[in-house]
């Protein structure tokens, strides 16, 4: 009797639950998407209308002057190129170092393995901090050099652990024994068998590291002083956060765009710049999403 009553109630409570759940998820999706969508719309709309709050959902007074200006803005493109170079070279080195370390440290036994692991894991929890690290880079004469953007973050202990757990769990030890009996050396075994079998984790690492390089500004802020070496994020910082525009680029802008005030132009440039700088990652990640998620899962398997 009691049971029956309960069951009738249950149907309703589940229906209410799902109604609320749909509302919650819809709310989250809208909150996430709308700011991004608004930036895109504002970047092609008349900035006066945007400033007056007339643009909310659809672009109004469509124009592409913002993007035209961005394409002519030299500082942006030279730094864009720098970022591409830092990202490609940096990620390449990251992946090679991390995979090699993971290979060696996932071997079943060799003398010193425990010690090396301890030495690496310790750095996850304690470090010299900003100032001694900066002074170290200075002592190594790396300040304001290309390598200051590449070497300090060459291996991430966290990613190393992800790659190592992957190799431990998915490449059986018997394979190594068989390869060694067949006369392969460790390096041959690594290059010809382990690496080809590890493509998923190579994908994860490439993406983690590449996003990191693309978005980072900390190393540049600390170690670089000459503008021609600046990555994109440093130029973005000047424009978006400090509201500083290259005077040469802005001056030529005012001559030709007399119809648009400098303030409006700045605003328009900012919206366009957000789109141009974030686009590569935003376009790429849905395709690579499965790798990212896999990475998180391998990482959580460790425990």
């Amino acid at each position, binding site marked *: 009797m009691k*049971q029956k009553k309960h069951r009738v109630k*249950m149907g309703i*409570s*589940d229906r209410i*639950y799902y109604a609320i*759940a749909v509302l919650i*998820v819809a709310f*989250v*999706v809208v909150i*996430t998407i709308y*700011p*991004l969508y*608004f930036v895109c719309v504002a970047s092609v709309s008349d900035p006066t209308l945007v400033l*007056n*709050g007339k643009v909310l959902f659809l672009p109004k007074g469509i124009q592409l002057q913002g993007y035209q200006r961005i394409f002519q803005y030299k500082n942006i493109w030279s730094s864009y190129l720098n970022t591409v170079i830092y990202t490609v070279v940096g990620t390449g080195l990251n992946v090679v170092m991390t995979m*090699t370390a993971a*290979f060696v*440290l996932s071997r079943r036994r*060799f*003398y010193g393995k425990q010690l*090396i692991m301890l*030495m*690496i894991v310790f*750095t996850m*929890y*304690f*470090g*010299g*901090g*900003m*100032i001694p690290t*900066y*002074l*170290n880079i200075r*002592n*190594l004469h790396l300040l304001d050099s290309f390598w200051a953007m590449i*070497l300090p973050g060459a291996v991430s202990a966290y990613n190393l652990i992800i790659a190592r757990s992957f190799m431990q769990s998915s490449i059986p030890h018997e394979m190594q024994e068989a390869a060694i009996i067949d006369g392969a*050396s*460790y*390096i041959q075994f690594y290059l010809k068998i382990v690496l080809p079998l590890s493509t998923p984790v190579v994908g994860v690492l490439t993406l983690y590291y590449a*996003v990191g390089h*693309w*978005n980072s*500004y*900390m190393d540049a802020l600390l170690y670089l002083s000459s503008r021609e070496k600046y990555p994109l*994020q440093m130029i*973005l*910082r000047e424009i*978006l*956060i400090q509201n500083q525009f290259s005077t040469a680029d802005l001056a030529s802008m005012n001559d030709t765009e007399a119809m648009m005030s400098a303030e409006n132009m700045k605003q328009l440039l*900012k919206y366009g710049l*957000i789109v141009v700088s*974030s686009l590569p990652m*935003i376009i790429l*990640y849905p395709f690579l*999403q499965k790798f*990212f998620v896999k990475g*998180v899962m391998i990482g*959580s398997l460790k*425990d």
Partner: protein
Amino acid sequence: MTMRRITRKKNSLNGVTIRKVMYQMKADYQLYLLILPIVAYFIIFKYFPIYGLKIAFLDYDPALGFEKSIWVGFDNFMEFFTGPYFELTLKNTLVLSFYSLLASMPIPILFALVLNSFRDSKGRKAIQTITYAPHFISTIVIVGMLQLFLSPSSGIINRLVVWGGGKAINFLGEPSMFRHVYVWSGIWQNLGWDSVIYLAALSSVNPELHEAAQLDGANRIQRMRYIDLPGILPTIVILLILHFGSIMSVGFEKVYLLQNTTNSQTSEIIATYTYKQGIQRAQYGYSAAVGMFNSVVNLFLLTVVNKISKKVTEVSLW
């Protein structure tokens, strides 16, 4: 006589093990060759700076250099502890951290639980993909967007506030607003991404438990509470420990970008203070001491929380 024999035996045993180790190491020489650059990297870029922490105990004089500067013990630390910035930066760091932790831990868990209750896996994937998007945007762009959206005169948020009958708020200039802006923009950026790990954990919850519970008449919320939540508890605990362990290392990058002269009363944290003293004013010894205080407290908290967790829940990092 017997004694001698025993010692000789011991020696020869040691000799054998040493020879065995040497033989093994020789056979494995390629492994050592491969790991050499990585070990070198960690020594040069991670352990040199740890040795460099010595500067925190020196009255560093660039003319004398690192080795010859005068050793002053804990003077730099005392200068910080007794100075006007100790209380301010410590309080700001802790408040910002705890606020951030308390607000940004439960929300992704709830979101994952709710999303996981939907049967349609394609829809679930699509929603996940959408909510990840902000995670891939750089801190600089996020702060740039905040400046545009929160502008008192033209920002879209303030338009909403004014439209609702309120008075425009200077979010980025108001010291009382800084923490909310920091924490909630962080939640906006990482809600989807942070829920991935919980969704992964939820996918390994045994579906038979749900079927059995359904037969027993449990509704969705009850099943969430008594099956899903316990299922992901170890994951939650691990992440909680990790968050606690980094309670003192609030991201320098975003705080520094959001900081300005008007909101520094709440936005000056230990990391930004270290940067200003060290990099901008070249007070190396003093700022290294400030930074070291931060890391030591961090390590201490992590160890304590890990110990507590080991006792209470049997989940721990090491």
